[in-house]
């Protein structure tokens, strides 16, 4: 244990938090020194976000107290915390979808000129704030039209706009690609340089290794340890988090030898998003789609399965098919798991059982009515098979942690017993232990002769589990890599049109 | 010792001037009658529409009635409800609006203004005064009494050169009548006479004419006998030379007659039709009640 030289800026003393009878945080002590980047890691549902919400005044602790500059404080709410210089970048995106980027960034702290708003100044300020993160978004764009990644960045820009002493990032990079992540990490180092403290949550352990001064590990709501990042390797972190060895993240597998194509797509156009895309998927193959955020991967595959209007030829097992709605493709044995788990994957306000059987309800109907006993059995089976960690089977889907939501979504779609599985961002915001489980699961799917398409912005991930990778840029498939060409460099070159080193320096200039 | 008698009175809610007058007179007469007969209890209930009036009749019956006096907001839909009271052997008085079968199987006493006559009187007046007039008509709501007045009007003007330019609904509402009249004035370059069959709507009609500064309109005929219109007739307003009486006080007549059935040994069964008297400058003061809300 290292004691920081300076007195702690923010301190949590004996913090506990219970939701009803369930204690999700127990007796947490944490201190944050000025000018340090302090990473918090832990499995999904370990209580990281809950702790951060307490530190930022969004939730009151059940027990324990906070100290700011050594003096006890009670935070009346997020606004109070912000006034004291504590800002939180939420894990979920908290922006008003109907307002523009600038309006969101300045919401609640508008710049005024007399009676009126100074929109010019705000647009300018917003453009600068966003550019400081290494991207360029028109500040007058309505947030509802941005991609998730862009929203995430806008949210960060918003948080950094006020004077801050403690900045809490709750999985800021989950939906970002490499270059954007790099830019963000540089911003964080900047903040540190100015003497503020940063709390940083991420499931991407190399990132944590790269940036953190100290690392605190949470497991099941308990603080396991706080250690200097020096000498702590990613594998060690993983072991501390999960409580066991995570030796190999990506499963070993032999690429499929099948020659038959399960799915052939030719000249697919999704108006406004993807143009003239053609690709083929073998039986038992895991095919990756890489590219920068906004390259149009999601839209292309949504177009293929009938979730969007699209034009082009699709052949399934050699037979031409045309999916007008997603029902057609589901019936044909293709499932698509959305990257937007909360918005398009699960009914957050309904319980686990209703979510699980929603897509495959037909199997649970006997006569006219739903066989509730069979439903309950299926839930038990899925909880076991997919290792969904829940304290209570009556929980609402929205009360599960992110990783468990993803497993529930997988379980839901697997009930359909599909032949082709398309998973969009399978591990976004998911802890390393769960990632391992999901990768293993994907590999097993392929083993059993099913074909899988993985869309991911995490380069390592596509490289680690895919047999072959297609790279998209600006709505077009610009290349394919396979075998030992599957390296980050090759992919980045294809995705950006420039080498990764050039890309990084461009981001720096921006 | 006075006989104990309960009379239930069911009337439409006061949703425009005329029904407000009905409510006013019902309450007034209820007090008078109860003062006169210490054993008499009169319960007055108002309802906004036919379905809730049917409910009100049921509720009154629940309280134990000897007689029901009802002015149905819409007669046919209430027949069944009334019949139930009648079949229980109670004395039933129907006021103003007659159901399609209006005989002693459903009521003992029928007191009414004369809806067809209201239209007919207006029509005949126009025929007599301006036999070649071009007339626009603003109707009430699309319900049967409105239709009866309309038919009476057509009968009244039959055989003359009177031309009905247009008919639209003003919903017995001042604002709607104002609107309809404005548009009539836009649409028809020459209008001689306006018939609105209701004093409330006449208020809107007069404003619209005034605003358009049109001088071709010779006069407006309304109906009911509200104090404002009667006053105009009395004062010799050129646009309102006459008004057709359709007194809301008829509810009071019906209640008094019903009470008489119990307290005075006189037979009151049958039909009492009040005239649709033409109020002119000469007789106007007989119909002017400044205290009434209508």
């Amino acid at each position: 244990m290292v004691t920081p030289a300076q007195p702690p800026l923010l301190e949590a003393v004996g913090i506990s938090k219970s939701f009803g009878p369930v204690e999700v945080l127990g007796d947490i002590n944490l201190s944050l020194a000025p000018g340090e980047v302090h990473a918090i890691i832990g499995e999904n549902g370990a209580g990281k976000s809950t702790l951060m919400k307490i530190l930022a005044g969004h939730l009151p602790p059940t027990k324990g107290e906070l100290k700011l500059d050594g003096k006890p404080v009670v935070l009346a709410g997020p606004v109070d915390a912000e006034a004291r210089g504590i800002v939180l970048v939420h894990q979920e995106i908290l922006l008003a979808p109907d307002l523009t980027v600038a309006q969101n960034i300045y919401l609640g702290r508008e710049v005024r000129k007399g009676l009126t708003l100074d929109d010019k100044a705000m647009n300018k300020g917003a453009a600068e704030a966003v550019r400081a993160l290494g991207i360029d978004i028109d500040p007058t764009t309505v947030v509802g039209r941005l991609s998730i990644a862009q929203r995430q960045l806008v949210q960060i820009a918003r948080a950094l706009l006020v004077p801050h002493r403690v900045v809490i990032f709750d999985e800021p990079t989950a939906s970002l690609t490499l270059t954007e992540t790099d830019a963000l990490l540089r911003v964080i180092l900047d903040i540190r340089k100015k003497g503020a403290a940063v709390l940083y949550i991420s499931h991407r352990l190399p990132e944590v290794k790269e940036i953190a001064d100290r690392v605190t590990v949470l497991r099941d709501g308990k603080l396991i340890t706080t250690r200097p990042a020096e000498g702590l390797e990613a594998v060690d972190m993983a072991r501390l988090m999960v409580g066991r060895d995570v030796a190999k993240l990506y499963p070993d597998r032999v690429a499929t030898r099948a020659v038959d194509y399960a799915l052939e797509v030719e000249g697919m156009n999704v108006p406004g998003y993807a143009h003239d895309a053609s690709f083929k998927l073998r039986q038992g193959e895991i095919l990756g789609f890489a590219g920068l955020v906004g390259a149009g991967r999601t839209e292309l595959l949504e177009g293929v399965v009938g979730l969007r209007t699209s034009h082009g030829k699709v052949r399934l097992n050699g037979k031409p098919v045309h999916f007008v709605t997603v029902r057609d493709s589901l019936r044909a044995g293709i499932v698509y798991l959305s990257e937007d788990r909360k918005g398009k994957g699960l009914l957050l306000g309904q319980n686990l059982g209703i979510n699980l059987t929603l897509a495959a309800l037909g199997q649970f109907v006997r006569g006219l009515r739903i066989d509730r006993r069979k439903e309950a059995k299926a839930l038990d089976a899925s909880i076991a098979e997919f290792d969904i960690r829940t304290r209570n089977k009556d929980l609402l889907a929205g009360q599960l942690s992110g990783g468990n939501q993803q497993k529930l979504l997988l379980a839901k779609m697997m009930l359909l017993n599909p032949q082709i599985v398309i998973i969009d961002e399978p591990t976004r915001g998911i802890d390393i232990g769960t990632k391992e489980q999901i990768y293993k699961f994907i590999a097993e799917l392929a083993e059993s002769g099913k074909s899988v398409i993985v869309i991911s912005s995490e380069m390592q991930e596509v490289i680690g589990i895919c047999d072959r990778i297609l790279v998209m840029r600006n709505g077009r498939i610009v290349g394919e890599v396979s075998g030992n060409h599957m390296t980050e460099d090759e992919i980045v070159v294809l995705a950006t049109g420039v080498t990764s080193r050039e890309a990084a320096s461009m981001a720096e200039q921006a | 010792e006075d006989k104990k008698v309960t009379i239930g009175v069911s009337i439409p809610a006061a949703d425009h001037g005329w029904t407000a007058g009905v409510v006013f007179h019902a309450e007034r007469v209820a007090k008078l009658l109860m003062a006169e007969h210490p054993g008499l209890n009169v319960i007055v209930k108002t309802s906004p529409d036919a379905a809730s009036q049917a409910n009100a009749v049921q509720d009154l019956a629940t309280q134990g009635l000897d007689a029901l006096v009802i002015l149905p907001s819409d007669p046919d839909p209430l027949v069944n409800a009334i019949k139930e009271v009648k079949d229980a052997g109670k004395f039933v008085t129907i006021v103003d609006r007659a159901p399609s079968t209006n005989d002693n199987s459903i009521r003992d006493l029928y007191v009414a203004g004369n809806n067809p006559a209201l239209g007919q009187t207006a029509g005949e007046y126009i025929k007599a005064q301006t036999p070649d007039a071009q007339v626009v008509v603003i109707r009430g709501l699309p319900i049967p009494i409105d239709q009866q007045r309309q038919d009476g009007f057509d009968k009244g003007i039959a055989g003359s050169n009177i031309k009905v330019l247009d008919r639209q609904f003003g919903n017995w509402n001042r604002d709607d009548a104002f609107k309809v009249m404005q548009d009539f004035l836009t649409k028809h370059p020459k209008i001689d006479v306006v018939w609105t069959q209701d004093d409330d709507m006449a208020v809107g009609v007069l404003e619209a004419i005034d605003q358009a500064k049109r001088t071709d309109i010779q006069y407006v005929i309304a109906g009911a006998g509200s104090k404002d219109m009667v006053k105009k007739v009395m004062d010799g307003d050129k646009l309102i030379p006459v008004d057709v009486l359709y007194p809301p006080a008829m509810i009071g007549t019906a209640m008094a007659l019903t009470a008489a059935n119990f307290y005075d040994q006189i037979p009151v069964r049958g039909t009492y039709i009040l005239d649709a008297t033409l109020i002119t400058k000469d007789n106007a003061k007989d119909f002017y009640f400044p205290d009434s809300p209508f």
Partner: protein
Amino acid sequence: MTDTTSAAPLRRSWRDIDLRAVAPFVALALLLVLGSFVNPNFLGLDNLSNVLTRSAFIAIIAVGATFVISAGGLDLSVGSMVAFVASLTIMFLNSGMIGNPFLMLVAAMLLAMGIGALCGLANGLITTVGRIEPFIATLGTMGIYRGLTTWLSQGGAITMRQPELQQLYRPVYFGKVFGVPFPLVAVALSAIVGAFVLYRTAFGRHVVAVGSNEDVARYSGIPVNRVRNVTYVIQGLCVAVACLLYIPRLGSTSATTGLMWELQAITAVVVGGTALRGGVGRIWGTICGAFILEIVGNIMLLSNFVSEYLLGAIQGAIIIIAMLVQRSLVRRS
């Protein structure tokens, strides 16, 4: 996307579910107590049976509204639809097309159901295919159905003419089954069928899914528009059933039949605990809500100390108070 299913409301909700479902029944019980103070006749069998019987129309319509609202829709046209369906049915009964009165009656009932379903379908298609907000779409059809009724009746009333048919039909409103008024039986049947469909069948599950999150429903392969359309058709069928009870009661319709019933039906649904934003449906709460509305009116009428001018005001106040009681019950849990 901007998913703010913030922790707090979620946590609260699962425990409240029970209390929230119970709240309307508590409010009903309180009203019954209040009523018994106001007038000794209130708790009499006659009065209660009267009141419950006449709440049948709204209750049955509100069962349909529960479906529409659970799926995230709204139907403001039901009141006009009652007028329209009932008018056409009476006109058919008067037409004497079928000699045998019994067969005639059966045919008329089928016709009513058919028209109701079609009207509902029209509402559904305008909102789903036309993509017009339900509020506006059904406000439009509200005008259309009522306008057509006015036109059919040529401004007058449409009244059943054949006395023998009327005699035959009368028991449907005034009759009793084992001492229970027939309309109450109809309410119970509608509610049972409604609850079965909503809670026990795949379709009901789909309705709730569509109402909670349309995108999730679509990505799960649920035919969102079809589900919505069917809820509107169900609403139309419920309206038709209400008409079948309504016709024998008053035997006649006019352009003012069913005026404002849409607001009453929606109020019943909401007082019963179904949220207007969709995703939750409580059939039994709805029935309870319809009873509450009618009982409030009944208490007003039976009490002799409320000026009749103030009736509407007090009714409004009671609805607000009932909702406040509900909220505070739920919050305290």
